[in-house]
């Protein structure tokens, strides 16, 4: 993430200077809290709670409410399911869809993979703390379908 991961308007110049100075200086004294670069973010996974679809069920809504402690820098999508599915994603807090047409949800295989081969977002997408992300799932398998659809990335300050 490097320098571009800084939260605009986040730390003051003085705080940044101190952080820089501390990073270049001696290790923290024993007993002090663990020091790590907040800017690097903390790995985090937000799953849509496993969604249970009946055969050919459509428009099953699920939501993720982002924690209030940090923004989320989203850079991967991973999903597993027991059958084929499609999904329509929406950043509800901004009322911004991530797909062009709610009538044409994107097939799961076109927007997600397993953890080993996820869909990467080469430009991570920053989602503000407290935001709500919505998804509408549709079964394409013609059989009951359990889907776990995960947004993977980093909590950043």
């Amino acid at each position: 993430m490097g320098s571009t991961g800084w939260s605009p308007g986040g730390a003051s110049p003085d705080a940044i200077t101190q952080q820089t100075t501390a990073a270049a200086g001696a290790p923290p004294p024993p007993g002090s809290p663990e020091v790590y670069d907040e800017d690097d973010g903390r790995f985090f996974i937000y799953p849509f709670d496993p969604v249970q679809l009946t055969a050919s069920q459509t428009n099953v809504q699920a939501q993720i409410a982002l924690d209030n402690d940090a923004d989320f820098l989203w850079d991967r999508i991973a999903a597993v399911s027991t059958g084929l599915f499609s999904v329509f994603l929406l950043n509800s807090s901004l009322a911004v869809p991530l797909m062009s047409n709610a009538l044409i949800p994107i097939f799961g295989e076109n927007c997600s993979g397993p953890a080993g081969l996820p869909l990467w977002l080469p430009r991570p997408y920053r989602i503000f703390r407290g935001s709500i992300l919505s998804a509408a799932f549709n079964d394409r398998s013609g059989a009951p379908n359990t889907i776990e659809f995960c947004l993977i990335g980093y909590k950043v300050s």
Partner: protein
Amino acid sequence: MAKTTCPTCGGRGAVANAKTGSPELCPNCQGQTTVSLGTADLPFWYPFVTPANALPVLLANGTGGAAVVIDNDSDFLWDRIVASSTGLFNVFLTDKFSARPLMPSQAVPINGENIAGTAQLPFWLPKPYLIRRTSTVTALFTDRSGAGNTIQFCLVGYKVA
């Protein structure tokens, strides 16, 4: 990527050292004076749809047209192609904004497996392709499977300011 004046240094590119007061390169923008907004580039999927607003469904060895119309709120920086289909197909793409085909001849369309992957292993455009807002990209699909074929062919990338 959309940029804004660096809030840390106020666009000066440098900050004062807390102890000595001497100027140092701004650790936020690295002296560039601007930083990325980070929220402006929205990951986005544009599936090709038919005039009836549905996925292309081809008859055996049949042909069908579909299009992507870019929303008028943002240009689209296209960097990947993903597709899923029930059978083999080939495709001929044209950027209608520039009236420029993306392959040499409609008589020799490109096989789907040579132009698209899935989300796990998409076909990457090493140089992302900027498609202007409201412009159209058309596709002419042809079935190669000899059976009915439903195709979801998506341009994936970012809405950019």
